[in-house]
């Protein structure tokens, strides 16, 4: 199936069998394409003894670890064609991933995100409240991935309003005005999970303030680690968000800078869904074989979008489990799954490090 044909479908319409077929052909073509175009990728596949004729399913296809994008600049188009370089938001001192996009990739990723998001909120552009600071747009060196996410999401809304000022304080008047102005129409909100928790939910709770959204949809993205440490799970998060913001439908989504076109959104039943454009394969760490339904393993993400860099099949460092296929009560087809978060750091024995580095 070509990308154009994918775009003509409802993004959650392909059942497992149809999708496997469509993805397998498409991803195999992409694998061969990157093999031709990206010399580093070719070297890896040669060492893995890649043979196209032996590929029977999506899970047979070779994948590369996400961390590779930190140490190498992997590209499948000429440098001159790159219009955008995305970097991950690594903590200071750590290497950051570098992802190279050409015009075609930028366009397709935007289109995909649009298809997915509008399947939740409709095609019209809604008033948008960004639960973050506008500074993020200006200081791109500091907040690359976060900033890119905000800018990327802004296209779904109109009248973008930032809820936080430069010091990360809620601009209460501005938010009140926003909700008053749009009190009888649906509004859209977007932000990063932990930012929302730290600078919106906790602050409003402490101040005893409540907004009164009538009909809002919130998309949020980002890690759960810090929230888990505070024993806050998704249900608790949603409840507390609704407690301070009002009538809000909350959607968590999972994605990564290394594969921006893969957007996995959690449905009303708390299940992460793969859209037609992407898939997850849960792998056992002992041999990378595919785990059974319900079995925990490493998450591999697959996407038909990346052409400018070999990021169509990536092994993440997150752990997850497929919960079911084609039968989520929400009606979305394909695999649905759960994410448990980052795998534990390796406890390596050995004598190389005596005077522990900080």
């Amino acid at each position, binding site marked *: 199936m070509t990308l154009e044909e994918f775009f003509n479908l409802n993004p959650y319409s392909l059942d497992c069998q149809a999708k496997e077929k469509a993805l397998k052909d498409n991803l195999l073509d992409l694998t061969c394409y990157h093999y031709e175009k990206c010399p580093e990728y070719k070297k890896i596949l040669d060492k893995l003894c890649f043979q196209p004729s032996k590929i029977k399913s999506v899970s047979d296809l070779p994948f590369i670890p996400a961390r*590779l994008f930190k140490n190498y600049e992997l590209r499948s188009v000429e440098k001159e064609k790159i219009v955008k370089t995305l970097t991950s938001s690594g903590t200071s001192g750590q290497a950051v991933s570098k992802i190279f996009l050409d015009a075609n990739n930028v366009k397709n990723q935007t289109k995909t995100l649009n298809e997915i998001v509008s399947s939740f909120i409709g095609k019209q552009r809604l008033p948008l409240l960004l639960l973050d600071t506008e500074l993020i747009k200006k200081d791109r060196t500091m907040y690359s991935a976060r900033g890119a996410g905000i800018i990327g999401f802004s296209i779904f809304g109109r009248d973008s309003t930032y809820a936080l000022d430069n010091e990360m304080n809620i601009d209460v008047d501005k938010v009140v005005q926003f909700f008053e102005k749009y009190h009888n129409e649906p509004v859209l909100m977007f932000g990063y999970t932990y930012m929302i928790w730290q600078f919106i939910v906790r602050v409003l709770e402490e101040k005893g303030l409540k907004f009164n959204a009538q009909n809002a949809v919130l998309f949020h993205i980002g890690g759960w680690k810090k929230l888990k440490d505070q024993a806050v799970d998704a249900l608790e998060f949603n409840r507390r968000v609704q407690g301070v913001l009002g009538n809000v439908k909350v959607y968590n989504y999972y994605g990564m800078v290394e594969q921006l076109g893969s957007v996995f959104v959690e449905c009303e039943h708390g299940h992460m869904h793969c859209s037609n454009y992407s898939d997850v394969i849960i792998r056992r760490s002992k041999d990378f074989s595919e785990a059974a339904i319900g079995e925990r393993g*490493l998450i591999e993400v697959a996407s038909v979008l990346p052409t400018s860099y070999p990021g169509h099949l990536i092994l993440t460092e997150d752990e997850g489990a497929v919960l079911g296929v084609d039968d989520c009560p929400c009606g979305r087809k394909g695999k649905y799954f759960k994410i448990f978060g980052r795998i534990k750091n390796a406890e390596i024995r050995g004598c*190389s490090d005596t005077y522990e580095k900080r």
Partner: protein
Amino acid sequence: MQKSGGVVIPMKNVNFIFGSENIDSSPMQPFDENVCAFVSELSSALLQLPPPMLRTMSDLSALAFWSRKANLQKMKNLYSDINERIGRGLCFHIAPSNIPINFAFSYLFSLLAGNANIVRLPSKLFPQIDTFCEVFKKVVAKYPEIGKRTAFVRYPRDNEITAAFSKKADVRMIWGGDETIALVKAMPALPHCVDVSFADRYSLALISAKSVLAASATELKKLAENFYNDTYLMDQNACSSPQLILWENDNPKAREIFWHAVYDVAMQKYSLQDAVAVDKYTLLCEESISNENILQIARYDNLLYRAELKSLNPEIVFHRGKGGFFYEYALKDISELVDVMTEKYQTLTYFGVDAQALRSKFMACHVRGIDRIVPVGQAMNIDIVWDGHDLLRELSRIIRAF
């Protein structure tokens, strides 16, 4: 701040697991009778720990076995000159953070040489360290002369504290990465202070394909188990763990047989952490891109990766696997190894090879590397002669009398 021997030590961050800053640093003779009695009683007490506990703490049982009375006697007999020797005084040990029981070996080596000791324990917590300290405290209660010469300390990485202990020491035992050694050596010490440092090293195995083919099923299984203990047991990350496997009289069938046997053992015993699996696979991809010297890589699930090298070159010491990622190469002649060998090379484990002849060959070639040539299975067996040092002699001094 408290004063000790004229040196101000910021003691508030130092946790004395045993002993105090008021340490008696007067030296004793090597293999002092009281010391030997103490060490062998410690050994017996450790060996009396419940068997299931000893089984899970193989490093602690190795220590207990090494320090038993008969072995002390055997060691003592190797030294004809102990009557003219005495310890140097106070020895300060910086132990590796990731090898739990190494500090105890370091301590016993120095105690047997006749020194008082301040030992910085790994700040990472390990059950075998707690167990050792518990047993130690019970036994040492009966030996006040040793108790007052011993301090086990824990403190966060703090150069001021390390510097303060350094200033008091007659000997510094520095286990560590090259950076740590440089850091500690740069700290002021007494003019006569002796530093014994254990740098980052590289180890390898030399296996005769002919002997593998000739081995019985039982011998092969034993070989594979021994190899496992040298490598996987410490995630292949100890200095003496072989990184590179060299084949003598190469035969592809012998290699297959050997690696399958290793895989079988690893399958039964090794618990592969998710993060190690990802690290290994990432290393495979990185090596595929960057290391032009790799001919091919064979994978046995994620337990065992074999990267076959095209040649031996000086770069190979910088390529290190972890958790079951090995490099291998078929030697045409031992001179290929000699040509690239540097002082980084520490242990060579062997199977089906004449160790004495190999040593003679190395010596005739004026090698700067290799301190140990030991059978497969003994890579981890730390002893009082280590890294080319005779620790008993280096940690003591001679009083000459004519």
